[in-house]
C-alpha cells in the first residue's frame, strides 16, 4: 500500500510539474482575411508610409513603418511578400535635400544629443546630422515594390507621370521616388502601384497638401495648399485606378497638423525674459528699432511674453505681438531667439510662424480633404482609418499596455525628433488603427501589433 501510494504520489507530482505547470492556450483562433484578399498588398503614401522619421529616410524607420508592420500582420492572414525600397542598412540615411547658403544640403536624421546653445547652456535636444546622398542611389533594379511611399508626395503627385524624373532640375522632381521608380520619366507612383496588381491597398495621402505649406510658415515657398477641387480629383483618379480590378483597401484621413509637435512645442508666449536688465535691454532695442510703435505695444516684462512678429498690416511700425492660436514653427533657430533677439527686437518673419489666417486656411483644407477621404471610403466600400482622431488621442495622452504616450516633443514617445513623423512606437499604434478598421470592415481577424516591442525616442547615454 505504501509503495503504491508513493508511486502514485510521485506520478502526480511529476505530471503536474512537467505538463500542467506550463499552462498553454491551444485554441487561438487563426487569423483570417474575411472578405478581403491580402495576397498582394500595396501601400501608397508619403513619408509616414515610408517610415521616414527624425527628418530622414533611414533603414530602421523603414523597417518600422506602419505599412511594414501592417504587412507583417497581413501575412498571418494570407498576405504575401511586402517589398520595400530599402536604403542600405549601413547608411545613416538622408532627408529631403534643400538649398542652403552654400549650395545643396543633404540632411541626416536628427539625433537626441547634448547641444550647447549660444549662451553656453548645454541641454538635451535634437541635433542635426549630415545625411548620406548615396542613400538616393537607385534600387529600381530590385524589381517592383509593394511600398509606393514617397516622402514629400502630395495627393496631386501620386498620378503625376515623371515625378521621379531626375533629368529635371532639382526641386522639380522627387528624388525619393527616383530611387525606386520603375521608369523615372514614364512612371507615376500610381502606375507603379498598379504594376503590382494589388489585391489589397492602403492609401494614406494628403498630409503634404497642407503640411509643406505649413512647414514653410505659409506662402513662402512654391508649396501652396492644394486647392480642394484638385485634391478631390486626385483622390478619385487614384482610387478609380486602385479599385479597377476589384481590389479592396483601406484609406486614412489626415491629422490636423496644427496640433503636432512641430507647431505646438514653441508657444506663442515663449519669449521668456529672465530679469529686469534683460527686459530693459530688449525694450531699449525695440524702441530703437521701432520708434513709431506705441510703447504699450512694444514693451516686454520679466517672465513669459508674447513673441513679436512682422505684420505689414499693422501701422505704424509693421510689428505686433503674436496672438493665441498662432503657431511658432519648431524649425525656428533657437539660438537666434536666445541670443540674437529673434522674436523680440528682431520680430519673427512670416516663415517663422503661422498667422491666424494661415492656420484657418490649413484647418479648412484639412477638414475639406477629410470630408472627401471619408466619403470616398464610404462610396467605394473601403475600410477607413480616422488617423485624425487617433493623433488627437495620442496628443491628449494615450495609455496602452502600461505605457503613456503623448505628443509631447521627445518625451511623449509617439513623435520622432522632427516633430512631424512617428517613432516606431507611434507607427505600431497607427498600424493597429489600420488593423482595427480592416477587421471591422472586412470581417477579418488580423492580429494586432504588440506596441511594447517598439521604441519611442532614444535617449543618449
Amino acid at each position, binding site marked *: *500500500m*505504501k509503495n503504491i*501510494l508513493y508511486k502514485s*504520489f510521485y506520478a*502526480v*507530482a511529476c505530471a*503536474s*510539474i512537467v505538463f*500542467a*505547470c*506550463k*499552462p*498553454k*492556450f491551444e485554441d*487561438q483562433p487563426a*487569423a483570417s482575411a474575411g472578405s478581403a484578399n491580402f495576397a498582394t498588398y500595396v501601400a501608397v503614401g508619403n513619408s509616414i508610409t515610408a517610415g521616414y522619421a527624425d527628418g530622414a529616410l533611414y533603414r530602421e524607420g523603414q523597417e518600422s513603418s506602419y505599412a511594414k508592420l501592417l504587412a507583417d500582420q497581413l501575412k*498571418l492572414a494570407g498576405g504575401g511578400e511586402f517589398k520595400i525600397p530599402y536604403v542600405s542598412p549601413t547608411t545613416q540615411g538622408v532627408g529631403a535635400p534643400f538649398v542652403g547658403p552654400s549650395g545643396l544640403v543633404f540632411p541626416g536624421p536628427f539625433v*537626441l544629443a*547634448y547641444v550647447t546653445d549660444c549662451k553656453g547652456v548645454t541641454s*538635451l535636444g535634437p541635433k542635426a546630422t549630415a545625411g548620406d546622398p548615396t542613400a538616393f542611389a537607385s534600387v529600381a533594379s530590385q524589381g517592383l515594390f509593394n511600398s509606393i511611399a514617397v516622402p514629400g508626395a502630395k495627393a496631386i503627385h501620386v498620378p503625376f507621370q515623371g515625378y521621379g524624373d531626375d533629368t529635371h532640375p532639382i526641386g522639380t522632381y522627387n528624388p525619393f521616388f527616383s530611387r525606386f521608380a520603375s521608369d523615372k520619366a514614364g512612371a507615376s507612383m500610381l502606375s507603379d502601384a498598379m504594376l503590382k496588381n494589388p489585391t489589397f491597398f492602403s492609401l494614406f495621402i494628403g498630409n503634404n497638401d497642407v503640411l509643406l505649406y505649413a512647414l514653410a510658415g505659409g506662402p513662402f515657398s512654391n508649396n501652396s495648399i492644394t486647392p480642394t477641387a484638385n485634391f478631390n480629383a486626385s483622390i478619385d483618379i487614384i482610387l478609380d485606378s486602385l479599385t479597377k480590378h476589384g481590389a479592396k483597401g483601406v484609406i486614412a484621413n489626415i491629422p490636423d497638423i496644427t496640433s503636432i509637435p512641430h507647431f505646438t512645442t514653441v508657444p506663442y508666449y515663449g519669449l521668456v525674459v529672465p530679469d529686469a536688465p534683460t527686459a530693459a535691454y530688449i525694450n531699449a532695442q525695440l524702441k530703437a528699432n521701432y520708434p513709431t510703435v506705441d510703447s504699450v505695444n512694444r514693451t516686454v516684462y520679466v517672465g513669459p511674453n508674447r513673441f513679436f512678429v512682422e505684420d505689414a498690416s499693422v501701422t505704424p511700425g509693421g510689428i505686433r505681438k503674436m496672438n493665441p492660436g498662432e503657431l511658432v514653427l519648431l524649425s525656428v533657430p533657437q539660438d537666434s531667439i536666445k541670443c540674437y533677439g529673434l522674436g523680440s527686437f528682431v520680430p519673427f518673419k512670416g516663415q517663422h510662424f503661422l498667422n491666424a489666417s494661415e492656420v484657418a486656411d490649413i484647418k479648412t483644407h484639412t477638414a475639406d480633404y477629410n470630408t472627401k477621404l471619408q466619403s470616398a471610403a464610404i462610396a467605394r466600400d473601403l475600410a477607413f482609418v480616422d488617423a485624425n482622431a487617433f493623433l488627437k488621442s495620442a496628443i491628449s495622452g494615450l*495609455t*496602452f*499596455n*502600461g*505605457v503613456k504616450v503623448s505628443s509631447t516633443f521627445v*518625451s511623449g*514617445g509617439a513623435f520622432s525628433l522632427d516633430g512631424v513623423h512617428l517613432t516606431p*512606437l507611434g507607427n505600431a499604434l497607427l498600424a493597429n488603427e489600420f488593423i482595427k478598421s480592416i477587421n471591422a470592415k472586412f470581417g477579418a481577424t488580423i*492580429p*494586432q*501589433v*504588440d506596441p*511594447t*516591442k517598439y*521604441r*519611442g*525616442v*532614444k*535617449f*543618449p*547615454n
Partner: protein
Amino acid sequence: MKKLFILLIAASPALSFAQGFQVNLQGQKQQSMGGTGTGLAIDEASVFFNPGAVSHLEKNGVSVGVSPTIGNSTFQLDNSTSQARTTSPVSTPFTLYGVYGKAESNWKFGLGVYTPFGSTIQWEDGWSGKYQLTKLKLLSVFIQPTVSYKINDKIGIGAGFVYGIGDIDLRRDLPTPFPNGDPGKAKLTGSASGIGFNAGIYLKPTEKLSIGLAYRSQVNMKVNNGKAEFTVPSSLSSGFPETKFTSSLPLPQTISLGVGFKPTEKLLLSAEVNFIGWSAYKSLDFDYEKNTAQLQDTHSERNYKDAFAYRIGAQYAATEKLSVRAGFALQMTPVQEGYVTPEVPDANRQTYTVGLGYKFTEKFTVDASFTLEDFERRSNFNKEAQFGGTYKTIIAIPGLSLSYNF
C-alpha cells in the same frame, strides 16, 4: 501517539500581498486536507490555524516544513499573437512550530515562524506587460508567539501576537530607450514590517465532533525605507534619481470557521470556510522621496473585494503508522474585473491536494503533501494600464515536514 485532528484552515489572511501566488502552506497535514485546519487539533500548526486548538494538542512538539512552490502563468495579449510565460524561480515557504505545556497544566505555549507569502513572479524578457512588471519578489516571515488555555475538555481558547517582516523586490521596464533601443529599468527594493494578532476558540462537544472559529487580524506591512533605483540612459539620469520610497500593503483580516468529524476511529473529515477581508486593499501607492518631472508618486487602484474560500478534506489512518489524506478547495478571487495585474494574475482557483504521513517512531513523524492549484482562465482588461489579455496560472506545490513530539 494518539491522533488528534484539528481542522486547520488555510486561508491565511496574511498571504495577501501576492495573493495571486498566495498559497496556504502552513502545515503539511492541513495542506493535504484541502487546507482545512481551523476546526482540527492535529498538530503544532494549530499555532497558525487556531490558537484555541493548541491547548487541546495531546503532546508537545516541534516541527519544521517546507513547501517548494512552482508557479507558472501564461499570458495571451488581446487581439494579438503575443504570448508570454513566467519564468519564476521556485520559492520555498517554510514553517517552524513549537508547542510546549506541562502535562498537568491547562496552558500551552507556542511559537510559529512561517512564511505567509513568499513567492516570485517573473515574466519573460520583453513581454507585452514589461512596462507594468517584469518581476515581483516577495518574501515575508511571520513570527508568532502564542498562548492557549484549555478551559475544559470541551473548550480551548488561544491568541497569538504576530510580528511580520518582509522583503519586496519589484522590477519593471521603463519606456526610456537606450541608444541601442533597449528599455530602461526600474528596481524597487525594500523591507517591510507590521504587527497583528490571531485568536481562536476550539470546541469539542463530542468525541466525534470538533469545531473551530479563528480570527486573524489585518497586518499592514509598511515599507518605510525602500530604495528605488533606475537604469536609464545617462541623459535622463537627473529625471530618475536614486531615491527612497515608502509604500504599504494590507494583509487582510480573515475569519475562519471549521469543523472536524470522525465517523470512525480511522477516518477524519474536515470542512471549512474562510472569509478574507480583501476589501482593505484599495490601492498600491509608491511615495518617492525625490520627485521629478519623470518620477512622480504613483497611485494605482486595486479595489479588491472581500472573498471566500471553501475547503474540504479527509484523513484515513491506513495503518498504525501510515495516514493518507486528500482534499479540495475553492478559492474565490478578490480581484475584480478591470483590476487584474501582472503582479497578481489572480482568478478563482480549484485546489486539489493529496498527502500522507508516516510515523517512523512514536516521536518522529514525516508528512508530505502535494497541492495543485488550478486557476480559472481569466480574460481581463486592466483599466489603469489599458492592458487586455488572458491569464492562465497553475501552481504545483510539493511539501514535506518533519515533526518531533514529546
